[in-house]
């Protein structure tokens, strides 16, 4: 920091320059910013733990039952089909072959919950991605163009905010006509993209006023260059945080819909439909309900802590204590 304002002009360049663009037209130098953020993130124990938990859950869901061309670990070793009904094996207590036991139809819970997770998390990830894409497109455009168009686009968003989440998603599904992985994604995306749009637009508007943007304009950079090379990279941080906040809400939304029967339904597995199935037999088989719900909770909590950690890491001024 400057010793004295009059000295600042000649202080040797050991003092590190701020990570914003040094010269107009240059892309934002991102290496030091991200590395610093990673450092700060690593110091937050809850965030690191949550990240590990998150990755563990994802690995569990995709590697245990197999995904695409990757054979499942459990299904290969023990030759289990999660959808295979075998009454002779019903309600077995936990064992090595069935770490979570079996349900009332004799299906291995361990692989079944994992397979369900694949669907739930899959919907979550794809929908979150779609939300961000749509949100960024809409919000960036609106914020960048500004003026009357921005006003009108935001009014439209205000209207969308008035639509209740679940009924809207239900309506969207009804419009599409049938429920499967992809229609769920579409419906949930339609019901949730506006928060991302608003965040992006807010960020773009704040960034637009920065001097380096004006400098870029002054040098004659075209609007799309300014947008892609200056404004969007700086919204990346916010977007990642938003992603980790949208993911749990989509997963919960899907769980809710499936639970009341309007989403993925049995025998297809998603965590919500598993919970729904387990509901009647709860008295005898509490584990059938507990386990998928705990996974949902774990994913939601982990995502939230990761988002908190990212927020602290990327903007250390907003520390809590």
């Amino acid at each position, binding site marked *: 920091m400057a010793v004295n304002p009059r000295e600042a002009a000649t202080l040797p360049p050991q003092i590190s320059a701020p990570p914003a663009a040094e010269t107009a037209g240059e892309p934002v130098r991102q290496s030091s910013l991200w590395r610093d953020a990673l450092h700060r993130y690593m110091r937050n124990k809850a965030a690191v733990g949550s990240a590990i938990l998150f990755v563990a859950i994802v690995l569990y869901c995709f590697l245990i039952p197999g995904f695409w061309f990757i054979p499942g670990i459990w299904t290969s070793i023990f030759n289990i089909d999660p959808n295979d009904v075998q009454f002779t094996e019903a309600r077995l207590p936990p064992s090595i072959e069935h770490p979570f036991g079996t349900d009332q139809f004799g299906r291995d819970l361990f692989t079944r919950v994992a397979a369900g997770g694949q669907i739930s998390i899959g919907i979550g990830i794809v929908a979150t991605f779609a939300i961000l894409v749509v949100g960024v497109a809409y919000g960036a455009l609106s914020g960048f163009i500004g003026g009357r168009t921005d006003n009108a686009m935001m*009014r*439209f968003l*205000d*209207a*969308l*905010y*008035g*639509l*209740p*989440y*679940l*009924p*809207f998603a*239900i*309506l*969207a599904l*009804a*419009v599409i*006509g049938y429920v499967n992985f992809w229609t769920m994604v579409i419906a949930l995306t339609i019901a949730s993209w506006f928060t991302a749009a608003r965040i992006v637009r807010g960020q773009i508007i704040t960034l637009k006023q920065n001097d380096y943007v004006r400098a870029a304009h002054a040098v004659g950079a075209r609007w799309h260059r300014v947008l892609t090379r200056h404004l969007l990279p700086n919204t990346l941080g916010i977007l990642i945080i938003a992603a980790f906040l949208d993911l*749990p809400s989509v997963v*919960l939304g899907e*769980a*809710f819909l499936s*639970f*009341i*029967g*309007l989403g993925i339904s049995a025998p297809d597995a998603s965590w919500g439909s598993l*919970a729904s199935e387990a*509901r009647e037999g*709860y*008295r005898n088989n*509490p584990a059938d*309900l507990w386990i998928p*719900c705990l996974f*949902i*909770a*774990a994913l*939601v*909590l982990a995502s*939230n802590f990761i988002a908190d950690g990212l927020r602290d890491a990327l903007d250390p001024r*907003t520390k*809590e*204590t």
Partner: protein
Amino acid sequence: MAAFIIRRIFWTIPVILLVILMIFLMMRQIEGNPFQRTQRAVPPQVQANLERKFNLDEPVWMQYLLYVKGVATLDLGPSLIARDRDVMDIIKEHFPRSVKLGILAFFWAILFGVPAGIIAALKPNTPYDYVLMFGSSIGFALPSFFIATLLIYYFALKVNLFPTNGWPLGFWDIDSRVVLPSLALGLFPMAYFARLTRGSMLETMQQDYVRTARAKGLRWKSIVTRHVFRNSLIPVVTATAPLFGLIITGTFIIEVIFSIPGIGRYFVSSVSARDYSVVMGITVLTSIIIILMNLMVDIAYGFLDPRTRTSKS
């Protein structure tokens, strides 16, 4: 201040119209919906009735306008399944029960959530803080249907404290049947409020003007109750609107699980039964409620934060 309020109210009207339009257009896209003159296996007099009631011989934009007029005059058309009942009657019967559920849930949330957040903020990093925040994390992450099922299991089967079925039908009737459902619904908002209040207060307490207040020699208690509270409550108040939306969404689930004869459960069954006019009517209703809630929160925000009053909305 008055100008601010009038401006906000003024802007709500096109928003409501736009929302109704979107719902209207969406409904028309659903396959087999009765709002188009398609092949539908309905007895001819029902069909004629439908056409009359929904003005199906008019052009689309006219249908929309007539529907809006209907909304304004509280006439949402007849139910397609319950042949002798109007959507409005159904709403009038079921809606108050859901409102009661929602308000009770909200009470839980504010009564326990906000004080929990305040305590946690005033004693940060102490066991109070850790316990309260741990509890709020649980309430936040566990899906409400799970909590609901747990509550039913434990309080109906293990400990027979609260009934798990039934619902006092009169609006002002409250008995022990309301406890479990409202608690199940209110747990998430409670956790949300707790974390939000804590975070907001902690952030406010670090502000420069709190340091100035201390430098002026004001008593700490008075600094907290005057300076800190007012500024911390702003984000909490703004969160009320989306939380209310969440509560509305949540009533759907809770009503289904606890078999409460409210508007949410009716909506879910209407979707399965393809009672489209009811579905549309309920969606429009909930939308208008949410928009009005947003309006009220905006106005409250104007009271709390003088900076928004003088700037353009």
